[in-house]
């Protein structure tokens, strides 16, 4: 099987979150970018499928400036991916996801025959989770997201999909695009020798193309951390019913969190 995994560099979990001076976007200054959590599962899933079908190859693709893409592509190679492509694009960390999806689709199209395209469920930073479905449409591939436990058996894929009310069981022919929530194993850790080898591995590069002007765009306008908590507004009440009524009203009208 020819498998492609699209991976995204995201700020590492303990990063200090800061807005830029204008407050319009996330400030990546001093932040370390690593492989997104669900992408680690997607890479793991790809490698498990490769192990189960000898002769398969796994290719990792990432989009962004080289300073962000190269480290996660090397990390993917260190884990066991056979090759990698960096789509060079000088874009911010929270870039328009549909535009990203179109670029990734172009890059995947350029790789020739592909049986399976894997995406992580969503990236830990913007958590949009729409790149996989969008890229699949651009490629003309069927897409299923929230996939758990993906298995390959004689040209067909079997998997489960985790939804609100429980789990669905699915079957699909190749080729397929998948948004992966969980592999059937925990993501592996790259060994030291593999990491050392990955430092010297070649990364194919391609430039990004012009955006689809007619499609509009999603532009980041503000990035904000919540203000520090000042302490609870204590609700005064004479009866439990009054307390309940006041709280529900505050939640709906003031906090705008509809219960």
């Amino acid at each position, binding site marked *: 099987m020819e498998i492609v995994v699209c991976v995204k560099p995201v700020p590492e979990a303990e990063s200090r979150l800061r807005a830029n001076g204008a407050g319009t976007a996330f400030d990546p200054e001093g932040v370390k970018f690593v492989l997104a959590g669900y992408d680690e599962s997607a890479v793991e899933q790809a490698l498990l499928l490769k192990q189960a079908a000898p002769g398969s190859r796994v290719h990792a693709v990432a989009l962004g400036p080289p300073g962000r893409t190269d480290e996660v592509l090397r990390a993917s190679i260190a884990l066991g991916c056979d090759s990698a492509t960096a789509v060079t694009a000088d874009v911010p960390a929270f870039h328009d996801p*549909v535009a990203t999806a179109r670029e990734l689709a172009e890059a995947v199209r350029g790789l020739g025959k592909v049986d399976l395209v894997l995406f992580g469920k969503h990236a830990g930073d913007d958590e949009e989770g729409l790149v996989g479905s969008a890229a699949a449409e651009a490629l003309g591939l069927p897409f299923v997201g929230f996939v758990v436990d993906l298995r390959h058996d004689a040209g067909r894929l079997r998997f489960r999909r985790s939804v609100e009310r429980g789990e*669905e069981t699915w079957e*699909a022919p190749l080729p397929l695009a998948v948004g992966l929530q969980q592999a059937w194993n925990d993501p592996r850790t790259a060994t030291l020798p593999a990491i050392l080898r990955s430092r010297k591995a070649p990364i194919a590069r391609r430039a990004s193309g012009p955006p689809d002007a007619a499609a509009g765009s999603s*532009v980041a306008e503000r990035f904000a951390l919540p203000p520090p*908590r000042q302490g609870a*507004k204590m609700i005064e009440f004479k009866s439990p019913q009054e307390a309940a009524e006041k709280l529900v009203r505050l*939640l709906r009208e003031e906090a705008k969190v509809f219960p």
Partner: protein
Amino acid sequence: MSDTILVVGEPDGPALAEATVEAVGVARQLAGPAGTVVGFVAGSGAAARAAGFAAVGVGRVLVADDPRFDQAPPAALARPAAATAEQAGASVVVLGGTTFGRDLVGSLAVAFRAAAANGVTELERSGDAVRVRRPVFSGRATEERRLTGPRAVVSVRPHTFPPANGPAVPLAVEAAPSCDLPAALLGPTRTAVAAAAQGGGPSLADAAIVVSGGRGVGAPEKFAIIDALAASLGAAVGASRAVTDAGWRPASFQVGQTGRTVSPQLYVAVGISGAIQHVIGMVSSRVIVAINNDATAPIFRVADYGIAGDLFEIVPALTAEVRRVRGK
């Protein structure tokens, strides 16, 4: 952008999913008094589901009553939905941000050549654009984005917006336009559905609302009032470490430094003192409510709203009020 908004209906058995009804409420607000909301439903029995739209005030519903969609991926609805939006003259499409909606938004955005956003918690028209706000970094921050261009596709975070509530209008069903839909996109097939083992209720990890009980609940059999409040809110149930250590609930329920970290829209802490180990697991929730009979408990320092009172009286009263307000 036009004033016509299309809402894509998600099936829930023979009816429309609650998330779709919330999406209708959002669409109506976006459309404004002069605009129109149009519905779209696909799959067999679509005509019956269309009645769900009419019940909440959406009279015009385009329907693709086609069994091919019944066990197909939600993403496969992209081209039919895009064609439908064109036909209806809609330039904005709104969906509920469930697993159904989230799988469809991306493919629909490409099929419809639109800008898109998933899981928004606030949105408004702004000139010729749609502005959205959404949580990022597991709720530790929020971003606002402007969706520019002629078309936009947005999914709204479930349990965040009030569901549309009528009045009912007469239903006018139209056939959705046909479109080029390659068989390959319908290739993946759902073969079975298994209900969640814990019998209903969202999982702690994804829930938009969490109700947690702590030592103040007193005894395992009294935890039922936490379950009841959670059920009324459509919330997941969590617990403090004291509760899981005592065995009142399994360890998987524990919210805190050594348990899970959650960042729901609303976190209700009942009978929880607010020790730092628990707070670390829930402090990034958007809104925190604390109910505790000790007004000096540290939880009130991190909560947004507090009720200092007897939880055995407050919680049932709250459950009753939520049910009343939600019309159940």
